[in-house]
């Protein structure tokens, strides 16, 4: 079964995945949504870490450390960042972290990764601006985005048909670039939000 859901709070995501397992849906793979396998309902513990790896050996070493200590790596790749672990039945410990500081640090890593992603789009934005792909004139005079000859002299049904037919293409022509600043804003939002979670969760120690 496939479910689309998005979390910034790892604690909430863990709870939700445990609820799903309790209802007989076991996480098989998580990337742009969650793929579940149907099975027996199960009380289990699922924990999430956030890490990306430069080298394959580092990723293997990381997975081995968790599996040696009784945590099965159920989803995540070298570059996916989010790593999902499920507790083995005979594991004593209930968490993959033994102090608040290291538990909160995963939000810090998530935040700085999102920030880096946001910044990485900046050169592309500059290039698009310099090559006139980003044309602010389109805001002032959107008519220029329509290429159908004589479109603006047409009337009635003939006009509306041609106009509506070309509108999606005109939008693509004029505003396709806007996905870049939008993506940047989205990543910035993730970055700020998870940094706030980091501050909140590391404060827990003292409250």
């Amino acid at each position, binding site marked *: 079964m496939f479910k689309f859901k998005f979390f910034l709070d790892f604690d909430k995501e863990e709870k939700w995945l445990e609820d799903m397992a309790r209802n007989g849906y076991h996480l098989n793979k998580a990337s742009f949504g969650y793929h579940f396998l149907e099975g027996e309902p199960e009380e289990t513990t699922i*924990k999430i*870490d956030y*890490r990306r790896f430069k080298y394959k*050996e*580092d990723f*293997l*070493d*990381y*997975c*081995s*450390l*968790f599996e*040696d*200590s009784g*945590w099965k790596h159920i989803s995540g790749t070298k570059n996916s960042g989010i790593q999902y672990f499920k507790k083995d039945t005979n594991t004593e*410990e209930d*968490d*993959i*972290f*033994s*102090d608040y500081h*290291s*538990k909160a*640090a*995963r939000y810090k890593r998530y935040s700085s990764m999102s920030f880096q992603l946001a910044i990485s789009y900046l050169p592309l934005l500059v290039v698009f601006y310099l090559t006139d792909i980003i044309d602010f004139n389109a805001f002032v005079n959107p008519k220029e985005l329509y290429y159908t000859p004589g479109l603006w002299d047409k009337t009635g049904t003939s006009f509306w048909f041609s106009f509506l037919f070309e509108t999606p293409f005109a939008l693509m022509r004029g505003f396709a670039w806007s996905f870049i600043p939008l993506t940047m804003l989205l990543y910035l939002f993730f970055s700020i939000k998870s940094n706030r979670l980091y501050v909140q969760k590391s404060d827990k120690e003292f409250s």
Partner: protein
Amino acid sequence: MDLEKHLPLTETTYYILLSLLEPSHGYMMMQKIEEMSNKRVKIAAGTMYGAIENLLKQQLIKSVKSSDKRRKTYAITEKGLEVLRLDCARMKHMIQVTENLLSDSSAIGGDINV
């Protein structure tokens, strides 16, 4: 080289350095530490991984050749050893001062009780 800036070591860091006097991989370190601390200090996998990463960055430990392809092996560096010695001396001094003062005050306390 200013080693003082690493002091005081946290209990976790101290035990990790101690566990690497002989080269070990992550899970072996976790087991050794549990044993050395009489099961009082248990470091979970995620915390251990982060701690190893930090100590590598600070060059207190280093990665050494390993026969196991899936597990990296680490060992303490000269710098790490020096920091460990400094922190041990720091604690020795604290214990000595504490013991001296506590034995004095228990004598005083005894007087008051009488």
